[in-house]
């Protein structure tokens, strides 16, 4: 196999990569257990008011004014620019809170205040959304597992889902370590990463399957290595173009989808890594070999058709 000689021996480092992944996953889980996710308004319920001042206000004064007005448990922070302020109230849902926050701010401000958005989410709605989101994620993983098992083989399916779980856990872990707001758009990003990373993993798996059928010699490790090398160029280029557009979103997309872009940036990087190291690694650990992929009759005919 001349091809192996001039290529990168990915699988030689599989032990180290495995350890790195394991450590990252464990760290993420620990952080998720200790720090937990800083859930956004969508999931916790509560009140949020975003206002735009004509001049940058003093945040501490604003906080005090709101406390004097009788709002306890207030978070006041800049949002995007120093003239935009986000006020978050921890207290439960009441439809009038937003209006009174705004009027409290307006009363004390010496210059123009403009309401950019106000959101009130009932605690129960948030809770349901949380359950629904978690359920959606599990459903996505389950369906993917079934599809891959159907199109490929069970070992591939376990490998793909491990890679996805790896990506999701690390993404969530990072959000918990950095204490970034986890809201609905970030959940959307997580699901999008599941889609993206899966895409990557399947491209590699597809190659591995093809090579198992085509190359009559070589150990499973060799085959996986060859396949990874053959798909490497594509994996890198696609990741690069995706990262490019994500950078555009990150820098020019505005504050509202900032965390969405962060989640996707992390997800794409981790997803690219995981399709090389996690998916392939698990596949080898499961002792995948030629017998798992006996060529069915029909596909054999197709092979012969090739020019």
């Amino acid at each position: 196999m001349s091809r192996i000689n001039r290529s990168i021996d990915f699988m030689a480092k599989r032990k180290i990569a495995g350890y790195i992944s394991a450590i990252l996953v464990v760290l993420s889980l620990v952080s998720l257990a200790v720090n937990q996710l800083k859930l956004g308004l969508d999931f916790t319920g509560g009140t949020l008011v975003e206002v735009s001042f004509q001049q940058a206000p003093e945040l501490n004064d604003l906080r005090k004014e709101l406390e004097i007005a009788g709002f306890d448990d207030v978070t006041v922070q800049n949002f995007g620019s120093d003239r935009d302020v986000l006020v978050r109230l921890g207290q439960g849902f009441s439809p009038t809170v937003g209006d009174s926050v705004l009027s409290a701010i307006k009363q004390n401000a010496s210059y123009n205040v403009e309401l950019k958005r106000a959101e009130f989410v009932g605690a129960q709605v948030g809770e349901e959304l949380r359950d629904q989101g978690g359920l959606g994620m599990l459903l996505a993983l389950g369906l993917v597992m079934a599809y891959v098992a159907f199109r490929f083989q069970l070992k591939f399916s376990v490998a793909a889902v491990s890679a996805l779980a790896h990506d999701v856990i690390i993404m969530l872990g990072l959000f918990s370590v950095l204490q970034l707001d986890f809201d609905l758009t970030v959940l959307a990003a997580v699901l999008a990463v599941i889609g993206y990373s899966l895409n990557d993993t399947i491209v590699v798996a597809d190659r591995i399957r093809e090579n198992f059928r085509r190359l009559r010699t070589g150990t499973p490790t060799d085959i996986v290595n060859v396949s990874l090398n053959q798909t490497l160029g594509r994996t890198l280029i696609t990741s690069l173009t995706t990262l490019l557009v994500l950078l555009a979103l990150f820098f020019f997309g505005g504050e509202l989808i900032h965390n969405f872009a962060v989640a996707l940036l992390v997800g794409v990087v981790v997803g690219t890594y995981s399709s090389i190291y996690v998916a392939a690694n698990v596949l080898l650990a499961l002792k995948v070999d030629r017998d798992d992929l006996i060529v069915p009759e029909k596909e054999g005919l197709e092979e012969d058709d090739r020019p």
Partner: protein
Amino acid sequence: MINKYPLWKYLLILMVVAMGVIYALPNLYPDDPAVQLAPQRGSVQITERHLSQVTRALDNANIEYFGQDIENNNGIIRFKSDDDQLKAKTLIQEALGEDFVVALNLAPTTPQWLMDLGAGPMKLGLDLRGGVHFLMEVDMKEALSQRNEVYISEMKTLLRSERLRYRRISREEGTIRVLFTNEEYLSKAKTVIRSEFPDFVQTEKVEGENLYLDLKLSDKAARDIEDYAVKQNLTTLRNRVNELGVSEPLVQRQGRNRIVIELPGVQDTAAAKRILGATANLEFRLEAASDAGTLDTEEYPFRDSASRRATLERDIIITGNSVSNAQSSFDENSQPQVNIDLDTQGGKLMNRATRNNIRRRMAVLFVEHKVKTRVIETEGEKIEQRIPYVEKHIISLATIQSALGNSFRITGLDSPSESSELALLLRAGSLAAPIYFVEERTIGPSLGKENIELGINSVQIGMAFVVLFMLAYYRLFGLIANVALSANLILLAALMSMMSATLTLPGIAGIVLTLGMAVDANVLIFSRIKEEMQNGASPQMAIHAGFERAFVTIFDANLTTLLVAVILFAVGTGPVKGFAVTLSLGIITSMFTAIMVTRALVNVTHGGRQLKKLSI
């Protein structure tokens, strides 16, 4: 012949792309801020006279306008800016008076020939357009107990007419409990109730002398009642939204007991909330006879002076739900009154009740469902509790002079504004069950504009990045991929416009993400072609094999992503749904453009020629 498409395939691809261009085109024409005029009642026609009345007022106030027009009995006036539009709305309402609904609108500027083809721009979501989003929850428990209340009064009538003596009927925790003291009455009552109220499940209980008959609605019947309550509320809310005068509102059921309302362009949430959430209703009851037992009566205060009270029968003759039309006006003493027309069923009930009770007094109860919120602390956590309660006040108590029919009037209201609001609520229908606001999102117009700008910027920059990269890396083939990518963007916009899907900020993010991922298919194909050439295939062979063999991979990879996008659509709400839509559509269009369009372009430029090498 290798790498040649038959002519029809080229034509088909060309046609699809051309269709894409046409249907995507309307998005290049931004909507004009406009004000829409509609008559309050269908019988009124909007004429040129009304329009000129409006334009005169606008001229006087120095507000620039254009394109005033009447279409389908709706007047439309366009403005240069949102500020003008807002100012004009107030002015126009003043000029035309209360007989017209004046609403903010966005008037399309799509050229006529495109409109004739059925093309129109995408709808913008609230986060791009500004407006209010409400999520309301229907109180199912209350819906059931209200219904049970009606059943109880029907059962009483039934038992009385069958001369089956019972001691008491009461309602507890979802069941109706009838107390008998006589075995025979109980068993007879069971039979009549079963035939008249088949939806109830009966259980008997004996406690000494007391024989209880517990009646519980079957699960299916309960579900039907809940379903009916939500549907009824939906209709009522639609009517009320229409009375608010909002263009393109959305009123939709979500899940089992929730209703979503989206009002684009509305900034005054307080007014919208007051009308939408109003639960005022009426109940008509007879004053209790002096010898009536306390179990059959209830005491209520008067609205104008709480110290005055009257004892009324528990049985309700009719409620405001039987009202078919209501109009506010003034009586001979210039006091506000509401003229009420009842539907046939309501008229019958009213006639029967009043016919037999001439000289007795009948009360009109003003019923309002309200909510108290109380913060309770459990285990250090503050939890807010919602306690619904009902306020009932007597607004009038008058002697029945003669049998009432389908129409009559009620008085005793505080002010003209109250009588007109009551008339509106009676007209639009009352809510079959109380509703609560469980979510509210207001997006200011400035944020909407900002979001559009940011969205367009990131699409452009993201696209530029990808285009430059592909050009640098793949040269001629990169150029081909870029053409395909542009076609993808056009087709995506066209599909979304044709489906009149709603574009949201996360939806735009989905488009940007699709741009990055769409080239993946091309990258897969190009890598395969390169690989085949390295393996010694001729350029033509390599192109052929590259496309053929990348296809399975592309298909598998995209189908799984599509699967995830569909789940996202099912799980997500609002803006996130928008993301799922653009992502799934993007995957579908990108498969077409990356495989078919690219192939066609490669075939045209490279097919059927002797090639030494490829610019890839």
